[in-house]
């Protein structure tokens, strides 16, 4: 079990949320609570960088869906960056890899 650590920064293309640790049943609420504090403007990308993510369960998937909705409601788009293989496998089973934009790393994702 790892704690969830999150940090946000702003880039030219939009906010970047870095997620480290476990995005699971216990921690996903923190992620969900953080979303409303992140402003996504029309045309911007909300990049969620999962490079340091250790574990993601179905609650974590729900949190990512909430992030997708949050970005869309602001007129922007969610981009997942540096998704670990085990999480990518889950995203692929549930079909979200076809719906969400996934980039290998956050530099590409932010267009930097």
């Amino acid at each position, binding site marked *: *079990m790892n704690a969830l650590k999150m940090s946000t920064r702003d880039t030219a293309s939009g906010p970047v949320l870095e997620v480290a640790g476990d995005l699971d049943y216990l921690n996903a609420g923190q992620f969900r609570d953080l979303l409303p504090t992140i402003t996504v403007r029309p045309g911007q990308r909300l990049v969620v960088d999962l490079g340091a993510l250790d574990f993601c369960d179905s609650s974590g998937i*729900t949190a990512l*869906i909430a992030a997708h909705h949050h970005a869309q409601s602001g007129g922007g788009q969610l981009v997942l960056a540096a998704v670990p293989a*085990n999480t990518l496998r889950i995203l692929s*089973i549930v*079909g*979200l890899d*076809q*719906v969400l934009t996934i980039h290998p790393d956050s530099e590409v994702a932010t267009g930097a």
Partner: protein
Amino acid sequence: MMARAGQYSDPHDADDDKTAQAAFAALLEDSAEDLYESAPCGYLSTLMDGTIAKINSTLLGWLGLARSDVVGRLRFTDLLTVGGKLYHETHFAPLLRMQGQISGIALEIKQAGGGRMPVLVSSVVKHGTTGEPLLIRTTVFDARDRRAYEEELLRRQQSAEEARRQAEADRARLQDTFAVLQQSLLPDTLPELPGAEAAAHYHTASPDRLGGDFYDVFPLDGKRFGFFLGDVCGKGPQAAALTSLTRYTLRAAALHDPDPVSALTTLNKVLHERYSAGGDPRYCTAVFGTIDPDPDAGRLTVHLASGGHPPAVVLRADGTAAYLPTPGGLLVGVLPAAPFTDASTTLGPGDTLLLYTDGLTEARTGKDRTSLYGDEALLAFAATQAGRPPHAVIEALGGLLTGFGDGLDDDTALLAIGVPSSDDQTSEDRTSSTR
């Protein structure tokens, strides 16, 4: 208080000291007689036969009697209630005779107005110079406050008892409700399939938690059957409500249009409409399919579609097992329009289609929660069961689930549909559901 004032007054302040000592002396002048009569407890002296020889005003006041009615006329026991008399005879008097004293006995005295007053009684026998018992001295303390306190305790105890009974009744009623709801989420039995067999298993991770997995097999149009199996997100009552909505939507949608992609599309619309507004996305993964049996040919055709659900496994009579891929099907209820992927297969004698929820493939096989049972292990296990009829496959998988022990912390549903090979014994329980 006065004694303290004298004790602690400044010795150098002679005037104050004198005043305090005078007040203290005034207290000492209080007569012993007055002290006896007006004491904050009742005093009573009786002869050895109990005849009252002396009684103080305090006690007379409690009794509501005049001294002349009592002294030399009544015995101590005459002052007591019937229960008190009895207790006096059986316990109080014998103990007093034996020990020469007794203290703190709870009795009740009768009051002139017909009331009874709880008291605490202590007695001591006074002996003469030659050791013979002369009389009995008794003090009687007002125990009304203490009795009120005890009654309050009793009342509290009784109300706690009542609350406990109520809570137990509530719990029993909740358990009944719970059982009925649980039954509404899973079928009691699976229908008889012509020339085919269906078997299911449901593993509950926690017995007091309504399940988040679901399955069903049901007749569609007199010839075909519908089936589904899935997993809703979340846990607890919210998940159960979602399960219920999902299950009944799929059944109704299938009657309207049994095409698997259509049924899942209807479910997607319903779930998205129901849950998208609150900012709390709720969704499920599901496989929905139709069974078209052809008993004469000894085969059946399965047409299914998946929304975000792990692929079904087909176990063949020849001892092989393979996934029936349905890639790209999206979680149901997440987006207003969702893609679903369909697939078809034909099952002949000895072939079985296996559906499962991810409790199986996500079961932990090591201490690390990333060491999971996995797709490959499932396929390898399925191959060892290939050629066996559905109920045997389900039984073997049930054993596998049991073997995971604590590693299986999620609900798991299993559903197998197949055509038994001709050499399989037909059995009564071929369509039974094991839970």
